[in-house]
């Protein structure tokens, strides 16, 4: 039972890693970014090219993930410059479909570069075994993902709520016009946050790479789960996303224990219930 919940918590934190960037870009630009899953996948493919099938150590994995995060972040700036910034004043549905188009472009590029076949990457030495906690065998790679999720959450939360640049970003998100009047460079701030959001997608792709089967359909699975997470938690709300990821993990664990014939069904039921009880998410919608 503990094993089940650790597994589900690993899934929850993995989803949070993807959802963090998604909620960030929603907070600053009010965009539901369909392309996020594709860029997450791009991060995974880039990392796999960098480290090969057998990563040398944990640090190689983390370093390669950060590097591909950086590359994806720069690509995000390109997308922001040529697509997103041109659509700020039109109906929100156009933005939704524009990100869908960017997703298609990204998936197409991945299929052309890396082909359709499945890849898999082993966890680095030190993470390929397991530890025994309270008499239960726990894969150490699960602990690594849970740790990574918590670390990313703490860093983001600190940056957004305690640092100067984070507060500026919040100001831009809440009232861009007013903060421009106060001498804040709004467009630059938006660019930084969008870049950070895409970079998070790339980083998440790299960190979650081991133990995944890497195929061009990887992005969709995570994207939908991440959507659900940020909707339950409250769009644009990083703390909400973290709590929602844990709730999803618990629901998924219950699903495996009590409804093993229908894997993945309870999550959708839980999400619909949450959305009807709290239409704006558990912690409410927030602008960062």
């Amino acid at each position, binding site marked *: 039972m503990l094993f089940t919940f650790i597994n589900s918590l690993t899934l929850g934190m993995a989803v949070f890693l993807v959802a963090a960037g998604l909620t960030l870009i929603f907070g600053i630009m009010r965009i539901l970014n369909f392309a996020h899953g594709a860029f997450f996948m791009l991060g995974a493919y880039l990392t796999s090219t960098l480290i090969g099938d057998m990563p040398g150590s944990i640090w190689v994995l983390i370093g390669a993930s950060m590097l591909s995060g950086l590359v994806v972040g720069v690509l995000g700036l390109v997308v922001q410059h040529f697509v997103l910034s041109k659509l700020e004043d039109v109906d929100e549905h156009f933005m939704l479909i524009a990100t869908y188009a960017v997703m298609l472009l990204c998936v197409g590029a991945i299929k052309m570069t890396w082909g359709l076949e499945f890849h898999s990457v082993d966890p680095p030495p030190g993470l390929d075994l397991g530890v025994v906690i309270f008499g239960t065998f726990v894969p150490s790679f699960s602990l690594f993902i849970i740790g990574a999720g918590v670390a990313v959450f703490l860093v983001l939360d600190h940056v957004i709520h305690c640092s100067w640049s984070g507060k500026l970003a919040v100001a831009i998100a809440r009232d861009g016009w007013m903060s421009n009047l106060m001498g804040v460079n709004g467009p630059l701030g938006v660019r930084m946050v969008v870049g950070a959001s895409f970079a998070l997608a790339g980083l998440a792709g790299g960190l979650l790479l081991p133990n995944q089967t890497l195929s061009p359909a990887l992005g969709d699975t995570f994207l*939908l789960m991440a959507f659900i997470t940020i909707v339950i938690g409250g769009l644009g709300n990083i703390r909400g996303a973290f709590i929602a990821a844990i709730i999803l993990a618990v629901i998924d664990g219950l699903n495996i224990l009590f409804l093993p014939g229908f894997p993945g069904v309870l999550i959708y039921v839980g999400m619909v219930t949450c*959305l009807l009880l709290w*239409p704006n998410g558990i912690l409410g919608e927030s602008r960062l």
Partner: protein
Amino acid sequence: MSSSLAERDSRRKPALTRPGINNTLIALATLTLLAMPFLTNSGLLYLVGTTLVLGVYSVGWNLLFSWAGLASFGSGGLFAIGAYVSAAAIRAGYDQFFLLIVLAGAGAGALVAMLVGLVALRRTTGIFFAILTLSLSELLRHTLMHTRSLGSEDGLSNITRPVLSLGVVEIDLTSGPTYYWFICVSAAVILGLCWWLTHGPFGRRLLAVRHDIERAGFIGIDVHRSRLAALVISGAVAGCAGAIYAPWAQIVTPELSGMVRSTQPILFTLLGGLQSFWGPMIGAFVFMVIEYATRTLVGIQEIITGAILLAVILAFRAGIAGSWNALIDRLTERRADK
């Protein structure tokens, strides 16, 4: 615009007008579609028939989007419901009542849409409505994937095309071309109904709600009920299209409820033209041509589709239908000025 055109028409009577040209085009397209079985091989005929069904389904989605202003990302679920109803009924041996089965598919789609609408529409709009519908259709897909009596992940296959019995006459739809003509006729009936609904008082009411929900309420329109009605109608069209699709494809799988199917009408509508009745149909056929032309190129298909979509959104937001109409207007105006 249209009134000034009409005035000019009455004064100068130019030979060509926009409605005239467009009606001619629609008539030509209809004739071409009807003659398709004589013009192509069976593989292409299958593609055209599928596109026709998907086009009808997208017109139903667009009724919800362009008229009521609601973007549903879960219409694939309603399509799948119709398809599974039809598939299960035909496999159970009720295929001589196929017309009733199609109606049942439409009814099932409408019923589910109404249940969703009753709960969801009062509480959610915009992005929340999009995500809610998206996850409901995913829920359906996962349930279908794990329900053994509906074939689990393999779906229901070997669906025979029915022999219709209408009391006095029996119509054999088992061959490809006859079922294709059946699709044409039912598409015409559904599109006619949709046209009648959108171009009458009901359509006007929906447009008012989409433009300004508060003012629409002030002038006495029941906003909630109008939206619900639009959702139910679009659900009925999706279910009906699904029910017709099942014997045509002869197999139904849980993937019908997936994200790809749900986003198809969005892409078709956008490419073909928003706020245009025929837009989704045009978009469906243009997409068919693109996909057919790029079918062997791995990856390039997505890139081309994505690039076209981006170009439409960034440069031609009115889509093919809108740009075409603007072009014709300019040409006829110049002719009239001379």
